[in-house]
């Protein structure tokens, strides 16, 4: 078998220079790429393009708060590093802490999770919710783009061939909201691929009207779903049972789950209803979660054979 060329830069500048000359696949944690290209037991994974290993680039491993108060996360930071770092926003830490298995979380990176552009990816949900941007660097400079624009569609990115994702910048955190919600429905507690994950956040104005409300859904369509139009239905108004149903109905029109659609739609409806109706009572706890007696009654469709 013909082997592809593999580059192993030791600095970011070196990596960007290689990227400007060679059309190559950046490989960080390997948790998606090594699996997608694996062959059978004992054989080397087969790539159709040259590969550039960027796992250990120190420039991509930093987490800090910038001068605007935004959380900046290097694209090479692992899920464990994000889950354990309290500088990172709560929604993102929840998602990172429940991604795959422990050993995988010590490898998988946020840059890779975005670049994989899967509608079931764990981090895009919170990143869409919090208006996160990616920083894309090349030898010619750098630019920033909203994660929700950068992920164009399934497995498709707005990425030029000489660019690398170097940073993820998250402008909002739980501090900007009064109540927060994150719930992942998986088949198991650990090692689960999301069946559906909902991230929500709400802030009230002094007069009791909704100052800001956000909801994003994972695994409910070809892309992570969020719609400012839907959120605007409730923003500026006082929460009422009718208004909650309006939001639910509108969001139902945004999502387009393919497998088990009724289960996913019903779970989404119930989680939005739960969050908004509990938030309207202004409870003490900032985190609103599902209770033990909370059940999704929609039945999954039989598996396709």
């Amino acid at each position, binding site marked *: 078998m013909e*082997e*592809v*060329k*593999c580059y*192993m830069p030791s600095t970011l500048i070196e990596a960007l220079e290689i990227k400007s000359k060679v059309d190559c696949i950046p*490989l960080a*944690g*390997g*948790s998606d790429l*090594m*699996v997608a290209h*694996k062959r059978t*037991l*004992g*054989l*080397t*994974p087969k*790539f159709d393009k040259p*590969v550039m*290993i960027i*796992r*250990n680039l120190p420039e991509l491993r930093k987490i800090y708060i910038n001068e605007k108060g935004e959380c900046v996360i290097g694209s090479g930071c692992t899920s*464990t590093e994000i889950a354990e770092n309290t500088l990172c926003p709560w929604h993102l830490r929840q998602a990172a802490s429940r991604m*795959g*298995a*422990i*050993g*995988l979380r*010590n*490898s998988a990176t946020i840059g890779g999770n975005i670049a994989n552009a899967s509608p079931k990816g764990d981090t895009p949900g919170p990143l869409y919710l919090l208006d996160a941007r990616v920083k894309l660097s090349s030898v010619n400079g750098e630019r920033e783009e909203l994660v929700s624009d950068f992920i164009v569609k399934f497995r498709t990115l707005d990425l030029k061939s000489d660019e690398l994702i170097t940073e993820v910048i998250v402008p909002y955190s739980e501090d900007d909201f009064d109540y927060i919600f994150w719930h992942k429905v998986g088949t198991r*507690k*650990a*090692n689960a691929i999301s069946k559906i994950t909902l991230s929500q956040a709400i802030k009230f104005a002094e007069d009791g009207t909704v100052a800001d409300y956000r909801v994003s859904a994972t695994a409910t369509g070809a892309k992570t779903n969020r719609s400012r139009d839907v959120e605007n239905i409730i923003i500026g108004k006082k929460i009422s049972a009718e208004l909650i149903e309006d939001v639910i109905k509108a969001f139902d029109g945004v999502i387009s789950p393919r497998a088990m659609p009724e289960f996913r739609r019903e779970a989404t409806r119930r989680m939005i209803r739960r969050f908004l109706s509990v938030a309207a009572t202004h409870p003490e706890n900032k985190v609103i979660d599902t209770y033990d007696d909370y059940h999704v009654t929609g039945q999954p469709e039989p598996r396709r054979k």
Partner: protein
Amino acid sequence: MDAKISFKLNGKNVSITTDPLRRLLDILRDDFKLTGVKEGCSEGECGACSVLLNGKIVTSCIIPIGAVDGQEVMTIEGVSATEGGKIIVEAFADGGAVQCGFCIPGMVIAAYYLLSNNPNPTDDEIRLGISGNICRCTGYDLIVESIKLAAERGEKIWKK
């Protein structure tokens, strides 16, 4: 395209000239004959191929050897030779944690990683600690008990 990869393996400096995209798992088993590391799912989920990379538990089936250049790897062979590792291995034997044994090297690594970071884990913390390791004999309860036993027996070592 071969490249020279140098790294620390169980405390010793080693180097190998090979395709950097070969999996760490294959290098350990085929080139260094460290067959304690097992291949289960090949997707980073079952934990049978767990090793410590720079002290952190990782699944070696998803790591290309090129990513290990200049890093430090510890396998079950290295871990079970440490004071803490010996205590875990003995506790697993005494506690009857081992059935078919295929998941056990990964389980011992996970227990070592857990106890090194949390010397007094609760039952839930132990279950969380081995949540990345799948035992197809489903003998989790005795594994959890054995890790508790290892925590008690190795109290002084883990608290270091």
